[in-house]
C-alpha cells in the first residue's frame, strides 16, 4: 500500500493478466518464457489440468471424455516468496510477505510483462486482477468491532459466542465499466491460540475489449488506489496502530 506502515499486514499481493489471443499457448512458449526468467526464478513446478466428463450419448450408452486444460506452470524465486504462474494466455504474479511497497511490486510486474511480451504474439489484455490479502491478528479477549469497520452485523439477541465468520461483499467502481471489487473478510480457523486472525481479501478485476500494454501503468495505479482506499476505510484507527 502507498501509505507506509512499519509492519504492513499484507501477506500476499497478486496481479493477474488474461491476454487476448486466438492462438492457444504451447510448451514451446513456456520454455521460451523460462529462458527469460530463469536467473531470477530458477525453480518450477507444474499444476496439471485434467477433467473427466460423463455424457449421455444416447439412451443405452454413456460417453466419457477427458478434457485437458493447458497446465499452469509455476516459477519460484530462490526464497519462494515471488511466484510467476503461467497458464494459457494467463500470467499471474504472486508476491508473498514481506511486502516492500507498491512501487517495488509494480516494477516487478512490468519487468515480467516485458519479458512475456518479447515472446508472446499478443500484447492486448482482456482482464486484469489486482488483489491484496491482509492478515490482522487480534487478541481473542478484544472486541473485533473495535478494529474492523467492515464487520458482520450480528443481532444482540443472539446470545452466543461467535466462533468464525465469513463476510463477502461485491462493489462496482463508478469510474470503470466491466469491473468488480470483491471484498472478503473472514477468520482463519485456529482454536489452538488466543489470537483471532482475520483475513481481509480485496480483489479488483477489470475487463476490457482489449487494453494495450501502454495504458497499463495508469490503470494499475488506479486499481491500487481503489484497493488501498477500501483497506483504509475497512479498519479503525485502533487497528492501524497494530501495523506501526
Amino acid at each position, binding site marked *: 500500500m502507498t501509505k507506509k506502515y512499519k509492519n504492513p499486514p499484507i*501477506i*500476499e499481493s*497478486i496481479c*493477474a493478466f488474461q491476454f487476448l489471443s486466438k492462438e492457444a499457448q504451447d510448451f514451446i512458449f513456456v520454455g521460451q518464457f523460462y529462458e527469460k526468467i530463469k536467473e531470477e526464478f530458477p*525453480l518450477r*513446478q*507444474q*499444476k*496439471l*489440468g*485434467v*477433467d*473427466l466428463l*460423463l455424457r449421455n*450419448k444416447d439412451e*443405452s*450408452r*454413456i*460417453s*466419457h*471424455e*477427458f478434457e*485437458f486444460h493447458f497446465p*499452469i506452470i*509455476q516459477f*519460484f524465486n530462490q526464497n*519462494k516468496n515471488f*511466484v510467476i*504462474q503461467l497458464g494459457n494466455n494467463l500470467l*499471474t504474479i*504472486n508476491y*508473498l*510477505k514481506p511486502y516492500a511497497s507498491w512501487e517495488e511490486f509494480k516494477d516487478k510486474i512490468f519487468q515480467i510483462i516485458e519479458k512475456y511480451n518479447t515472446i508472446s504474439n499478443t500484447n492486448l489484455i482482456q482482464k486484469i*486482477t489486482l*488483489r491484496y*490479502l491482509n492478515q490482522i491478528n487480534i487478541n481473542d479477549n478484544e472486541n473485533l468491532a473495535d478494529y474492523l469497520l467492515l464487520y458482520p452485523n450480528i443481532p444482540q439477541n443472539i446470545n452466543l459466542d461467535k466462533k468464525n465468520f465469513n463476510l463477502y461483499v461485491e462493489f462496482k467502481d463508478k469510474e470503470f465499466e466491466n469491473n468488480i471489487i470483491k471484498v472478503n473478510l473472514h477468520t*482463519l*480457523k*485456529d482454536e*489452538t*491460540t488466543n489470537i483471532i*486472525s482475520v*483475513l481481509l*481479501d480485496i480483489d479488483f478485476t477489470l475487463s476490457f475489449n482489449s487494453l494495450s500494454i501502454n495504458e497499463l501503468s495508469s490503470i494499475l495505479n488506479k486499481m491500487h488506489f481503489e484497493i488501498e482506499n477500501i483497506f483504509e476505510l475497512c479498519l479503525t484507527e485502533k487497528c492501524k496502530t497494530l501495523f506501526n
Partner: protein
Amino acid sequence: MIFPITYYNTLSTETQKILQHHQEYIDDITITKKDINEITKTYVNEHFLIKQIEELKREPSIITQIESLQKLYIFKNPREIRNFLLQDITLIEHLLDGYLAIMKVFQTGEKLELEYVIDAEENWDALTIIIPSHLPIKQIIRLERELFENWFVYIIDQVGNKLNYITKPL
C-alpha cells in the same frame, strides 16, 4: 498430453485403461451402461475428487490455497502449518496430489489430518499426513507400501524430509 507419472498413478486402474484407450481413439469412446455400472463407484468418486482438487489448483492465491487445504485435511496446529507452508510453498501442490493418491489407495471415509512436527534437538521439522484407517494392520502395511510406490517415491527427491505420512489404525 503426457501425464506426469505421479498424477497418472493416482488414477484407478479402470481410469488408467480408459485414458490409454482415449489417447489412441480420441473421438470414439463409448461404454455401455452395464460397463459404467461396474465402474461407477470408483469412477464417479474419483471424478468428484479430481474436480475438487482441480478447483483448488486453479485458485491463483497461494494463501487461499493453503486455507483451502483445510477442506481436505484437519490442521492439527494451524498456525504452525501455515507458517511452514509459507516457507516452502511448493509443498502445497504435493499435499493436493497426495490427497488424491491417499484416497485412491486407502479409500478411507475418515478425514485426513495434517500436523507440523518439530524436533528441536535434531534441528528438524516437517509436515506429517496422518491417515486414519479402520482396516486390519496387515492390510494397512500393504497399502502404506502401495502408496509409497504409487506416489511418494516420485516426490521424495523434491520434498526431502519436509513431508511424510503415517497411518493411524482406528
